[in-house]
């Protein structure tokens, strides 16, 4: 992925297997969120491909002006594949849901409506049946499911409050609940523990494992809290300056000198 003359993510190859919890870590500005955005269709990668459940869902190669300006690697590798540039909603429809680093709840809506609205995509109604209440049964089912989801996340007591009036930690929970409402197979979490204290982080980790089991999910997350990453993920990818510098199990990563160097390098800035 290249923005203007800046190569944000270069020659990064990641693999997430079904049922895993995989973490993507790296110093600030390493390109983690950019990688997420490429997967979820927010950005079109300049050069590269994304596969999901064995089918190619995103593909691009340098075109037009970018042909000359491209500074990343593998400039020839994907030239012959067709460009596939789905919009984010199409990706979500395939079963990939996400949360955001800077919480993006719908701020004029209640907690309940935030989750209910995320169910819109999977509903079978059309605008006429919905407007004239011909699909009332479906609407009722959506509401019941939403309530169940909120109860499970211990958010039911806040259901009629504005989403933005919740405390920070609960807003993150709600964002996860909202993502679950789209019935995903792969859940991408962008710094789910940001701003949480150790106790909350611990709870969150357990919660992630719990929803993974319950909904048969695969989880791919960006996280800075090393305790969370080391305790709960099956595998870890480490990137710095847009490049992969290490991958492996938590134990392997902890012992990797390159990772330690990358992290110590930024420790001063933070």
């Amino acid at each position, binding site marked *: 992925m290249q*923005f203007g003359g800046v190569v944000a993510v270069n020659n990064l190859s990641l693999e997430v297997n079904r049922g895993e919890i995989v973490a993507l870590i790296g110093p600030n500005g390493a390109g983690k*969120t950019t990688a997420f*955005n490429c997967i979820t269709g*927010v950005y079109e990668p300049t050069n590269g491909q994304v596969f999901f459940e064995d089918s190619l869902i995103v593909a691009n190669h340098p075109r037009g002006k970018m042909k000359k300006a491209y500074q990343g690697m593998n400039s020839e590798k994907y030239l012959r594949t067709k460009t596939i540039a789905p919009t984010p909603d199409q990706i979500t429809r395939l079963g990939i849901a996400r949360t*955001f680093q800077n919480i993006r709840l719908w701020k004029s809506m209640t907690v309940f409506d935030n989750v209910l609205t995320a169910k819109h995509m999977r509903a079978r109604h059309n605008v006429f049946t919905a407007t004239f209440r011909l699909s009332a049964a479906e609407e009722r089912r959506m509401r019941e499911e939403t309530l169940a989801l909120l109860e499970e996340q211990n958010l039911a007591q806040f259901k009629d409050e504005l989403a933005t009036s919740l405390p920070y930690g609960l807003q993150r929970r709600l964002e996860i609940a909202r993502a679950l409402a789209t019935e995903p197979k792969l859940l991408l979490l962008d710094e789910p523990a940001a701003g949480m204290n150790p106790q909350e982080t611990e709870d969150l980790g357990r919660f992630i494992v719990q929803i993974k089991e319950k909904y048969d999910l695969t989880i791919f997350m960006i996280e800075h809290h090393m305790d969370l990453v080391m305790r709960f993920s099956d595998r870890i990818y480490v990137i710095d300056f847009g490049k992969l510098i290490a991958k492996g199990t938590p134990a392997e990563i902890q012992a990797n000198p390159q990772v330690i160097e990358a992290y110590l390098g930024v420790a001063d800035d933070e």
Partner: protein
Amino acid sequence: MQFLQNSLPYLLAGISVGGQYALIAIGYTMVYGILRLINFAHGDVFMAAGMFMVFLSASLPLGLAIPLVLIITVALGFLIERIAYKPLRAAPRMSVMISAIGVSYLLQNCALYFTGGLAKVYPQLPWLSDTVSVFGAVTKRVTLITPVLTIVLVAALSLFIRHTRIGMAMRAVSKDFETARLMGIKVNTVISVTFVIGSLLAAVGSLLYFTNYASVTPTSGGMPGLKCFVAAVFGGIGSIPGAVIGAFIIGIAENIIKGLGWTTFSDAFTFALLIVILLVKPTGLFGEKATDKV
């Protein structure tokens, strides 16, 4: 040669109108660059300048009336910003735009009240209103003066923005409003200066424009205003040279269309052009590309 003689008047008129549009378009583009606001009232400030001229020249000699018109228009632009836009600095962008529409509505209604809804005859400006002939085409002198004056003013403005402290502050604010404020730039002063410059140029533009069109009505600011905004978007909003080039292109194209006998579509064409440019190059000819951070 015959063709040239037929089309020359339209071309000359186009260049002239283009210059007048350019002077107004700069006001739009500068305000947008700094406040991200479509100042819907700017066209009406231009109309108000025309009205001031009509009323002042009725009782004062032109030598006194013209500078007074410039001063009053500048004061009007300054006051509009202070009263209608400044209190909404923290409000959502849509509120400010609505306030601008409200000001436009107010100015038009005031003009309607003071004129009684009648078109007012614009005073003849000696020398400017005189007719001259160029290559056999007869036209007013203002047609020839406009592009020259426009270029001189734009050059002066560019120098001002590039070489003065306040000009530097303006560039900083348009790049990043918040950071500029944090760096101690007096944002409100910068915004006021922007409105002062914009209104001054609009006043000059109105002198030239109405000399050509001979009458002012309360709504005569609306359409030129919109067209100038289109010109600013066309050139890439926020960019002064872009606005000038956009204005000349629109002025010339509009007059060529009139020359072809499609007068009904001369206004519509401007908007068609806008829509095409927005679709092909959404940031205009010289605009910078902006990406949202997710």
